[in-house]
């Protein structure tokens, strides 16, 4: 039914309207794309177009980069409890480098991975965020993620008192 040129690729359309042509196997990593593919059987001669209005072009590029590389080198699954707090110890080098992006991009990747339903990418990006978070106090976290402190001094003191037991030597 499909012609030879189009049978191998899918067109993913970013929020801005840019079209990225990706092979079937790569696109299918996204469960969202996969479900949309099955429904649309109208185009026989052209590669199907899947609009992704929530994903910016730059983010989509990164996502496609991940999925493409995954075909050649599948990422080692991330399992809890984590053996190490360093990303390099848990996944291959390429993936460890892949998540070395700035915070905004990382968060946008999380959102894109969630929206497009790509589990390995979501795991990886969540892991990268957790590495950023680990060991930091609430104040550090507010600073890093630019969150304003909504607690009054009394509330803060109360929370600190409640959590005092966490400071004591545990396991």
């Amino acid at each position: 039914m499909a012609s030879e040129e189009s049978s191998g690729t899918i067109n993913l359309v970013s929020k801005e309207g840019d079209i990225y042509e990706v092979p079937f196997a790569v696109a299918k990593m996204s469960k969202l794309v996969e479900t949309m593919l099955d429904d649309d059987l109208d185009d026989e001669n052209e590669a199907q177009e899947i609009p992704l209005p929530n994903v910016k072009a730059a983010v989509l590029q990164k996502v496609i980069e991940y999925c493409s590389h995954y075909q050649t080198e599948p990422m080692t699954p991330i399992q809890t409890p984590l053996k190490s707090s360093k990303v390099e110890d848990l996944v291959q080098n390429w993936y460890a480098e892949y998540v070395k992006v700035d915070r905004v991009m990382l968060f946008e990747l999380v959102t894109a991975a969630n929206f497009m339903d790509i589990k390995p990418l979501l795991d990886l990006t969540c892991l990268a965020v957790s590495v950023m978070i680990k060991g930091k106090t609430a104040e550090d976290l507010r600073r890093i993620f630019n969150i304003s402190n909504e607690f009054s001094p009394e509330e803060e003191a109360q929370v600190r008192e409640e959590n005092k037991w966490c400071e004591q030597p545990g396991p």
Partner: protein
Amino acid sequence: MEDMPWQERYIINGYPSRTRKRFHESPLAGDDDNDNAQHQMRQRQRIMTANDDNHQGESTSRSGSEARDKKNVAGVAKRLSMENEDDDDSEEELSVGQSCSCYSNSSDDYSEEGTNEYDGDLFDLLPDDVLGKVLFSGYVDTIGLIKSLSCVSKRTQRVAKETVKMLDLHGCKQITPEIMENVVTKFENVSTINLNYCTQFSGDHLLKMVPWSKTLQRLHLRGSAVKNGEFQKFLTSVEKHIDGPSRLKEIDLSAIAKDGKLRIQDCDVIQISNSCPNLTWLRLGFCSGVTDASIQSLGRLRCLNTLDLSLCTISSESCETLSTMTTLKSLDVSATRVGDVGIRKLFGVTSKSPTSVIAPSDLSASVVVSPSRTNNKDTPMRESRLEILRMQFNYDFSADTLRLIVNRAPMLRKLDLSHCTGLDKDESKPSLRALKRNGTVIVDEYGASGIAKSSPHSVSRRRSNSLETL
């Protein structure tokens, strides 16, 4: 702006280095909104001094997240309009809430210099469920979670309350009942809690967990100080709280010291059988207060897969009940008084009459039919579905009974015979060989031997969160 779906909100947000340059070059447009002007001034300052890790986040007066968002969008939207040559809207007229649908910077390489241009709350980029996934998927340890993560903002507190399902507090000997109560209010949907080796944990602590009755499924209290009758009390409270049987699926009440006799007793076990119909996994190791009297009640648990009764005060009498529990896949009766008779009963032989031996060569991996079953009148036709059997320190265990196991347990993947000193080495050799050929791993005091077969009926793996594995 607040009505906008969260996706649109983040799409408007500014982007990296290209934006920055142009922003400095173009003057700020005049605003109607005084707030916006101030906000943009702040933005400029922030961008000029920002660097990746030490984002100083001058939290200037922000009146609350809603107002903040408004300002964010206004400021960011303005920035975008300035960067875009093709933009239809003029800088001055761009108002809050208008989405910039026509900016295109797709051809630019994304700069990885790491300057955080977005000056708003980064967590705002994510909706609640994604934030929950990011923060609370279990990558951050529980103490860190409680201490820091959930205290970052009111929003993370709320998301934590709803999302956190697993708490790992093993070894936290400093937890008091009050602390427990506090933890329970902080997290409403906990289904798994690991309190192994919390040697101070008692009935008082337990009762504080009753509010979790609806969601709690896995309760690990190995080595705790829960005394005689206290677990029974806990379970009756749980039942009262949800007006029905408890949802518990996994319970570990093993003791780690000789005073196990003071801990879990028969009354607690009977209560477990009554109140936890969904129980699949139960460990009562070293609970010397558990005797034959309560094992019969365990037969009522129709879903039980895994049962650990090592070092309990049980004898061969219990094995009759155990043999009727067809859902049992893993059983540990190490260091108990079940003896040889008990194991025979376990596999359906109630009398001591010898079963005829099956030559090892007749055994195949898939089919086990033992002619002896039809000969012996007192043996049931049923085969055992046991996959893992541990019977260390069973001094009476004989080669005869081992032969019985070979016939009756086709799905056996692991057999632990450590310290079964009564087992004659020569007599048992053929049976052991047969078992190994069938894929069973034999464990003795020298280690494991045999190649495990991949069993299609393997016991479902629990999430491993530093919880004891079988």
